[in-house]
């Protein structure tokens, strides 16, 4: 039996592994995707030590760091977690693993709009990853939905290759950081539509127009071939809920200062937790991973 299974190979899981290796905690990292959500970030400008780096490159650097210290990464999908004598058993799509403790760091998934046409046009103009799909919309009109940093980053990235980007936000003020806001305001290619919701996505075979609704319920048609949905994320916590781990009203896993969940031996770190004051950043995810590793080390001793 290992000391620790880390579920998730994003900054939280990889950050934990670096510390786990240094504390000589025998562990394995099980993750679907090295880097996790990092891979969808076009450019990172707020991670200490890197003025500007693509998410994927940072993920690769983190992986190399983990492996240089002896951490083992397995590209597998965890399907089930069970409590067993003296620890936990994780069943993946390939194997079974057992360990005395568990660190759950599998992050969040993109929130959907749930409007007409969204599902139908997935891959035909509807996208949840501007970094992945932006290049297909060179010189085309696009809409970005959302008001946070992810939406702002998507709009700025898309404006590098399209001269017609419309950011649609349901509120009267954006929640993105001021430097993103200034850059958007100064871009001649970005228009911001406030107080509007997406009513539906229309087209024949591909997306041709987006129908917005304003606060008076009147419809506005925006001609566009792409719509990038960046309206936040929902936590992937189902496996822990099945075990009875406490979550908050928004579905995030309740953790204490040492990243322990409500079940002894199960820790959580990164975007999925209630810690770091809900500030879901790379630096906070990596830090939560480190804190968890120290606590796990103390507990195993």
């Amino acid at each position, binding site marked *: 039996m290992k000391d620790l299974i880390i579920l998730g190979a994003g900054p939280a899981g990889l950050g934990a592994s670096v510390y786990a290796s240094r504390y000589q905690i025998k562990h394995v990292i099980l993750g679907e995707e090295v880097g996790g959500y990092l891979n969808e970030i076009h450019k990172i400008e707020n991670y200490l030590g890197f003025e500007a780096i693509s998410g994927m490159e940072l993920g690769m650097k983190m992986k190399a760091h983990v492996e240089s210290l002896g951490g083992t990464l397995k590209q597998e999908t965890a399907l089930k977690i069970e409590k067993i004598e003296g620890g936990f058993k994780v069943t993946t799509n390939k194997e079974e693993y057992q360990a005395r403790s568990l660190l759950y760091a599998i992050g969040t998934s993109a929130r959907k709009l749930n409007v007409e046409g969204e599902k139908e046009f997935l*891959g035909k103009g509807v996208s949840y990853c501007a970094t*992945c799909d932006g290049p297909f919309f060179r010189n085309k009109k696009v809409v970005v939905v959302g008001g946070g940093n992810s939406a702002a980053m998507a709009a700025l990235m898309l404006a590098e290759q399209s001269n017609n980007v419309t950011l649609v936000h349901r509120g009267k003020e954006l929640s993105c950081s001021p430097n993103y806001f200034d850059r958007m305001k100064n871009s001649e290619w970005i228009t911001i539509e406030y107080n509007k919701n997406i009513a539906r996505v229309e087209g024949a075979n591909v997306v041709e127009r987006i129908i917005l609704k304003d606060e008076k319920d009147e419809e506005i048609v925006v001609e566009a071939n792409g719509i990038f949905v960046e309206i936040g994320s929902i936590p992937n916590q189902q496996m822990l809920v099945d075990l009875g781990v406490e979550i908050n009203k928004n579905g995030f896993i309740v953790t204490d200062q040492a990243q322990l969940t409500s079940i002894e031996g199960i820790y959580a770190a990164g975007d999925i937790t209630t810690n770091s004051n809900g500030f879901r950043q790379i630096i906070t995810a990596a830090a939560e991973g480190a804190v968890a590793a120290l606590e796990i080390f103390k507990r195993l001793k």
Partner: protein
Amino acid sequence: MALEFTDANFEEEVLKSEKPVLVDFWASWCGPCQMMSPVIDEVASEIGDVAKVGKLNVDENAESAQKYGVMSIPTIIMFKDGKNVKQLVGAQAKEVLVEELKNV
């Protein structure tokens, strides 16, 4: 190992193939595509001689990607007798791909 498809060999290798063909449309800038890459290799070895399995880099082979309306990656298209018979958008599990490929 999965094959490599290009604009140049697409007709010969994919459209004129006697067996069904799975094409994984990907690019180096796409994280979820990196995650799919080893999965596609596994599908290739698991399916054996029943079907062909390969990857197409959309950055280098824009013509094929455009022709089949790929606007999101990863996209996986299964071809039979030169026709697009199944199109899946986003990362997929190996089991799903093997099953779909057996049934096209």
